[in-house]
């Protein structure tokens, strides 16, 4: 296998001695991904701050006595206009629809009297209605804030007035310190979030890496006429194929690592550091080996798939259009895992290539990957990749494919 080794060395030298290639394959995509997610994160947090800083315009109809003192007491910040029963609210509804007014709160007529006259079950209970526009961020936030701070406090104060002792109503407390009661496997909780995202990302990144590199290394060489010079060497065609596939595999893995790290760093900024706890995920040695094996077979499969397309294509442009449907399939296979429930899946699912890689990785991250499922996944992926490799070798032996003869 001296030929294979020699070819791997040459392929790696070709990429790493070419500054343009290193920049366009590894550095630029990594930086772009990071910048993209950081900008997204920045925009989202700006939006949140903006909503927080906004002072809502609120109209209150039939405001009962004592409401204004509650508003002062809870320090509610808003431009409040009080309306009488006779005032029309039509123009306010219009304003809410257009996003000019954030909230309209309507108390029933005789609100306080109705409450004070309550004596036994069946007596009328008055209502407060809020009108808002859920598609407007400001309006949405105004409704939530007003309900939670003003209306809830007002309700509590009226209850206290009616019963004298509000603790009579409380009967018992539920979790005064909710944080103290959380019993969770940190690893699994973090894993759950990552399990949704990572298989998708890794799958896409791996395929993307294989795609760019494979088309250049095989179709490109064919187009440039440099592949034939290798075909003239006294080595087996399979040695050339393995040399190409292994070097592609190495480069693909490297680019996938760079892309994934950039995404994680970018998302970390996006989620305000929620992913910082990622480091707390702990893998057992067996899990690490499983993850490694899984990634290796996935890389092997994608590289051989791209190679098969690339070897049949006559030009890189042609290769690009052949490989796109495959890319979409890989994307589909991995997107499915993002939205599927975490319920147990039958072992047969682990024999569906691409999809199985994603769900196995998902299971692995939450610590639920059984040996049987792992075996079926790796086995079926490796088998398929091997079959494709045989086809690639056959294509390398075909003069029609190689020389268009």
């Amino acid at each position, binding site marked *: 296998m*001296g*030929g294979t080794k*020699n*070819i791997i060395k*040459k392929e790696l*030298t*070709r990429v790493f*001695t*070419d500054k343009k290639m290193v920049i366009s394959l590894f550095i630029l995509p990594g930086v772009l991904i990071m910048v993209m997610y950081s900008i997204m994160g920045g925009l989202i947090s700006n939006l949140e701050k903006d909503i927080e800083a906004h002072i809502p315009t609120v109209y209150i109809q039939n405001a009962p006595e004592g409401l204004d003192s509650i508003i002062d007491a809870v320090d509610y910040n808003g431009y409040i206009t009080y309306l009488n029963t006779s005032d029309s609210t039509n123009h306010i509804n219009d304003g809410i629809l257009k996003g000019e007014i954030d909230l309209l709160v309507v108390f029933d007529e005789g609100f306080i009297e109705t409450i004070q006259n309550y004596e036994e079950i069946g007596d009328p209970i008055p209502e407060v209605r809020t009108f808002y526009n859920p598609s407007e961020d400001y309006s949405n936030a105004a409704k939530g804030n007003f309900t939670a701070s003003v209306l809830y406090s007002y309700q509590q104060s009226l209850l206290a007035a009616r019963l004298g002792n509000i603790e009579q109503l409380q009967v018992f407390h539920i979790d005064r310190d909710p944080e103290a009661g959380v019993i969770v496997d940190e690893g699994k909780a973090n894993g759950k979030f990552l399990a949704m995202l990572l298989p998708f990302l890794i799958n896409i990144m791996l395929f993307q890496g294989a795609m760019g590199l494979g088309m250049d290394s095989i179709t490109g*060489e064919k187009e*440039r*006429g*440099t592949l*034939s*010079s*290798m*075909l*003239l*060497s*006294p*080595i*087996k065609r399979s040695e050339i194929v393995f040399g190409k596939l292994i070097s592609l595999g190495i480069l693909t893995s490297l680019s996938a690592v760079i892309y994934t790290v950039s995404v994680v760093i970018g998302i970390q900024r996006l989620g305000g550091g929620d992913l910082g706890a990622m480091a707390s995920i702990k893998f057992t040695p067996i899990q690490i080996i499983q993850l490694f094996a899984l990634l290796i077979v996935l890389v092997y499969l994608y590289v051989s798939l791209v190679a098969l397309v690339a070897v049949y294509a006559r030009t890189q442009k042609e290769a690009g259009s052949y490989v796109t449907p495959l890319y979409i399939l890989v994307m589909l296979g991995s997107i499915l895992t993002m939205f599927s429930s975490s319920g147990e899946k039958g072992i047969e699912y682990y024999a569906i290539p691409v999809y199985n890689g994603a769900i196995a990785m998902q299971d692995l991250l939450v610590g639920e990957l059984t040996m049987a499922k792992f075996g079926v996944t790796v086995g079926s992926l490796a088998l398929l990749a091997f079959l494709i490799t045989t086809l690639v070798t056959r294509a390398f032996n075909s*003069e*029609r494919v*190689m*020389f268009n*003869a």
Partner: protein
Amino acid sequence: MIQINELTKVYKLTKKQMMEHKTKKNMMKAVDKLSLTAKPGEIYGLLGPNGAGKTTALRCIATLLKPTGGDITVKGYDTVKDSEKVRKTIGFLTNEIKLDPQFSPKYMFGFFGRLHGLNEKAIEERREKLFNYFDIKDFEDKKIEELSSGMKQKASIAVSLVHNPDVIIFDEPTNGLDIITARNVTDYLKLLRDEGRTVIISTHIMTEAEKLCDRIGIIINGVLAMEGTLKEILEQTQTKDLEDAFFELFKIHNKEEE
């Protein structure tokens, strides 16, 4: 020694190729029952117009194409059954086969030397000899994409000879070379012949065939129209030079085709 025995090569044409060749047949016979022998210590020239089947024949010898009919042996090895051994023996040069533009001639020389199983010392010795002969030393570390077409051709020739092959197959070796480099190459081919190696070249340049080749095979429409030394060919066609002889044969064989 190269022995070609009744070599026939038929290409299947795609619809697009059929349009390009303006034919309704989906098969094209590029070479038709071609038989010839190139011996050690001689330069054999395949002479013919474009599309006559010269390149196809040479590619069959170089194991890149498999014969549809007939067989070829190089130093006794069959080009289909023992293709790896044949590739070990031959040095093949053609226009369509190029060196990776991102590497230097020096790197490429080493790369192909290693693929041929040479050790570093042997590679260096060969490089010293060939790079000096073809004046490659000055640009041996430059990227091939930065070289002129003449420099590229020189580098390709040197690389194709890295393993000191016994059989040399050059498809239009002086194509694209200036007059000095072309002479350099033909001189080297003579040197190889004098060392007792088998050299087979293809050309459509009459003067090159006249001056360089010990024996000439004229190939028209895939058929070997005539074979022999320059003298024999001129005698048989009763002409004064190779160009006249070629047109005599072309008249006869092109008619037959129609």
